[in-house]
């Protein structure tokens, strides 16, 4: 059950993170495309380069690149290693990549003029998620261990009391001396032990009364026998 619960939680975390990253990446790309549109349309390459330089410096952004309608590079900046990678949109991927790539097109009056490509560095986020998963697994393991230890402790405690009760009852049944369980627990087992002690006490009292009556009857019988013997002697 715990495994199913953990799997569901991890799956939810993965999915919600991926959705959020996709949404954020597309929003960033769209905003960048809108901002860069004038520079792309007017081929203001100096301004465009300044713009992508600033974009690439944005925390979490690995690279930014602008290409025109023929795929010609207009400006790019960012992590040199990431810039050499072939651009491929990261949307709808099974697993969240460390480098998430998104793009947005620059379209005016229905005509494509170019696009902006961005790469988001998700290594920190992925490490956070993995750390979260590790911590969750650790907490779950400790929880399982604690539950097991508690069950063992509780079972031992309960079984020990029940065993004692059983032995005392066996001895009482065997007619041995009066004995009480005297369990001090306040739980159901303690209550049961108390009730057994009361029944046992009552039985002991009843038995004492019975023996006393027997003794009285025997005494009366002896007196009666003696009286009868005295009458016969007369």
């Amino acid at each position, binding site marked *: 059950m715990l495994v199913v619960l953990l799997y569901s939680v991890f799956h939810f975390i993965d999915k919600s993170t991926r959705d959020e990253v996709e949404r954020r990446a597309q929003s960033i790309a769209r905003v960048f495309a809108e901002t860069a*549109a004038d*520079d*792309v*349309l*007017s081929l*203001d390459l100096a301004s465009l380069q300044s713009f992508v330089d600033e974009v690439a410096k944005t925390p979490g952004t690995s690279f930014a690149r602008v290409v025109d309608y023929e795929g010609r590079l207009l400006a790019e900046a960012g992590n040199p290693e990431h810039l050499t990678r072939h651009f491929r949109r990261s949307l709808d991927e099974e697993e969240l990549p460390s480098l998430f790539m998104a793009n947005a097109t620059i379209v*005016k*009056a229905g*005509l494509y*003029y170019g696009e902006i490509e961005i790469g988001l560095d998700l290594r920190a986020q992925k490490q956070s998620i993995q750390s979260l998963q590790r911590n969750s697994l650790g907490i779950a393991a400790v929880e399982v261990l604690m539950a097991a230890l508690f069950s063992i402790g509780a079972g031992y405690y309960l079984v020990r009391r029940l065993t004692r009760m059983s032995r005392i009852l066996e001895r009482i049944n065997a007619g041995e001396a009066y004995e009480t369980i005297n369990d001090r627990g306040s739980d159901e087992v303690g209550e049961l032990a108390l009730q057994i002690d009361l029944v046992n006490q009552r039985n002991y009292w009843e038995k004492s009364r019975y023996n006393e009556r027997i003794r009285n009857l025997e005494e009366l019988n002896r007196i009666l026998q003696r009286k009868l013997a005295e009458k016969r002697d007369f």
Partner: protein
Amino acid sequence: MTFLQGILLTMFLTACVSAQADSRPLSFGIVPQQSSSRLAEQWTPLMSYLSERIGRPVRFMTAPDIPTFEQRVLAGQYDIAYMNPYHYVEFSQVPGYRAIAREQEKRIRGIVVVSETDPSTTLADLQGETLAFPAPAAFAATILVRAELKRLGVSYTPKYVSSHDSVYLNVSRGFVKAGGGIERTYAAALEQELENVRVLWRSPGYTPHAFAVHPDLPQREMDQIGDLLADLSKSERGRALLERITLKTLVRANDSDWNDVRDLGLEFIKTEQTP
């Protein structure tokens, strides 16, 4: 290889090169009077229309600012260009752009505005004053006004304040004695509750902006594009395209149509700023 095979191979290669050249997109540069995005929204449908009709892609292009546009036109980067009259006069000489179309009826005019309480009655009264202009290369609001002041021998200090609205506000608040503008933006400013400004002088009307082609463009394509532009107002779709770029009926143009601008003698601008 026989002589005949050589000729055939040469013809084949020539045809291939020619076909490749014909498929190259034609660049259509628009003078940057508004933001590039807005210009692209307005002009792209016309580019698509021309692409369909001439069977060759026509791409919208512009520049980040007027000086850059001038440099690009001067470098012959645009196959087709839409430029102001002064630009056309300049670039018809070098690199030799050829006019193909213009608006049929429109005449471009500049105005000079002063404060309503200002006693000036002629441009001569502006002698020695500071005058506001939107930008150095604004044809009607700056160049026409400055040309007239030069003709009258009025000396003044120009102050460039970025936009027509800014000119009117500077005049209205008394920061400058007078300023250059155009009727359309002045009327719009009045609608936006501009007060305390009146028109002191109106320039004569001049031939408006030019559609011109690069001198290397073949005559056949030049005529084809010129005819397509001139025929726009003859169809529903064409009229919609013209409306989108806020132009009225276009007609084929000749280089001599801009002689009125040439007659202004605008050499003084060359010494103060680009081009």
